[in-house]
């Protein structure tokens, strides 16, 4: 698939702090790319550099082969941005605010288009109301509507579901999936790893201004997958003195469950643990194995870096 955004050796320095350190990244056309990282990792700085809100200290960023610095009009024309905060002029009406966003991109008023977006985002009934009167969730949706007002080819969503309820989160996910079906490339930053797990085609992890990993989500999940097995015991155990010390095996706080991390249930290792329990007269009622989530993988990668 062709790269739509090409980031090459981009660094951004604020005083003595290096917010981005030699970042290189390719975003493919039509994909949903989830950029994950802890607070202060450089996610928003990277998005800001691509969108023109900040100027990189070195390196180049190209959007569909246009340079974001020397050909900024061509690059920004293609991009819609939903920022992390809720920066809105509260005195303006919902409709006019969307119209303003569209006009900035050189497009004339299109009532049909804006009303369609407002309907999709359940804001149509509020179209003539001042933004001040909207709830936090509505403001979040309005920012998405404003970003879509000029029909962008690339959509940046910086924490789009922060502070919204579960039902609205599902609605926003659906909207993101619909945009993808329409051919829009989506770059998503989120703290909800579940969101990335649900939506992303590829995942990038950034920490301390450096991209530490970029992989297809499915590849990432299988490569870094660790199974965790829980053996529910019939009686409470005080300790694991009956077996050799093993980092992969622990006893839960209530002493009623053995937790085995990274042990495959088809392996001999699990069989030997079960045998060992029998030999020591420890009965169990259930064996349950679960795959670790993207969140576990993310935490492992960030912590081990």
């Amino acid at each position: 698939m062709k790269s739509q955004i090409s980031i090459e050796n981009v660094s951004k320095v604020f005083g003595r702090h290096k917010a981005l350190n030699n970042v290189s990244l390719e975003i493919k056309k039509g994909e949903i790319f989830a950029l994950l990282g802890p607070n202060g990792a450089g996610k928003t700085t990277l998005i800001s550099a691509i969108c023109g809100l900040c100027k990189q200290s070195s390196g180049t960023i190209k959007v569909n082969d246009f340079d974001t610095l020397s050909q900024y009009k061509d690059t920004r024309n293609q991009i819609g941005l939903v920022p992390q905060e809720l920066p809105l002029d509260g005195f303006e009406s919902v409709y006019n605010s969307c119209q303003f966003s569209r006009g900035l991109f050189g497009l004339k008023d299109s009532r049909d288009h804006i009303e369609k977006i407002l309907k999709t985002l359940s804001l149509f009934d509020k179209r003539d109301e001042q933004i001040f009167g909207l709830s936090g969730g509505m403001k979040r949706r309005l920012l998405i509507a404003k970003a879509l007002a000029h029909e962008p080819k690339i959509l940046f969503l910086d924490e789009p579901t922060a502070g919204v309820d579960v039902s609205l989160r599902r609605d926003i996910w659906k909207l993101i999936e619909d945009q993808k079906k329409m051919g829009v490339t989506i770059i998503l930053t989120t703290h909800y790893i579940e969101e990335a797990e649900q939506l992303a085609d590829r995942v990038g992890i950034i920490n301390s201004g450096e991209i530490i990993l970029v992989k297809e989500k499915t590849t990432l999940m299988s490569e870094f997958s660790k199974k965790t097995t829980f053996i529910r015991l019939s009686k409470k155990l005080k300790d694991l003195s009956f077996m050799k010390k093993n980092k992969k095996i622990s006893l839960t706080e209530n002493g009623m469950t053995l937790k085995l991390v990274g042990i495959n249930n088809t392996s001999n290792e699990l069989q030997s643990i079960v045998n060992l329990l029998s030999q020591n007269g420890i009965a169990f009622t259930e064996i349950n194995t679960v795959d670790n989530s993207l969140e576990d993988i993310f935490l492992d990668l960030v912590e081990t870096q």
Partner: protein
Amino acid sequence: MNIQAAITIYKFEMARFRRTIFQSLVAPIITTSLYFVVFGAAIGSKIESINGVSYGSFIVPGLIMLYLMTESINNAAFGIYFPKFVGSIFEVLSAPVSSLQATVGYVGAAASKSTIIGLMIFLTSNLFVTHDIKYPLVMAVFIILTAITFSLFGFIIGIWAQNWEKLSIIPTLLVTPLVFLGGSFYSIDMLPEFWQKVSLLNPVFYLISGFRWSFFGTSEIPIALSIVAILSFMAICLLIIAIIFKTGYRLRT
């Protein structure tokens, strides 16, 4: 060229003006009326005519300039500072909008608002004094040039300001004194010789003097000098704005 962007910013800012039209227009009209009552009727009746012009008529150009300058600065400064304050400036900065288009949108709207206010003050003055305008075209040119130039200046203040205090500090501590001491309410011929020379260092004096010339055909200094002064100030403001956009000063990180 994305002309639509400049039009969009202009319309958006004018919508803000319409939302507060009562406050925007009524306050200057009431204050102007009070000036005419106090200076024109009460104190003005005790003052002899200045260069053959009654005192009430003499202060009209000064009053219009006073409002034109302060409103231009305040409107333009607020117009760019407010989106910076709430964060919504990100939309303009991430859109394909050139520095020229953004400046035309914000400054054009501020200049339009202050011009409307200036005209309202002129109409109000007709309720108190009668005067013929000797050079109406020159008057119109002066109003427009002053509105644009001081809106450019206000635009710079709005970008520079990082809080509400800074936003008002230059208009309050610098511009208002310069306007009052620039001959809004008196002719510098009425001052002692030393203060006449000091007044010549005040750039606002040249604008008020030139504007007064368009009304009465007489002024303390040649009209050409007034036009050179305002065009020079405009050029300086444009240069500063060009540098601001080039460097991203207090707009882009």
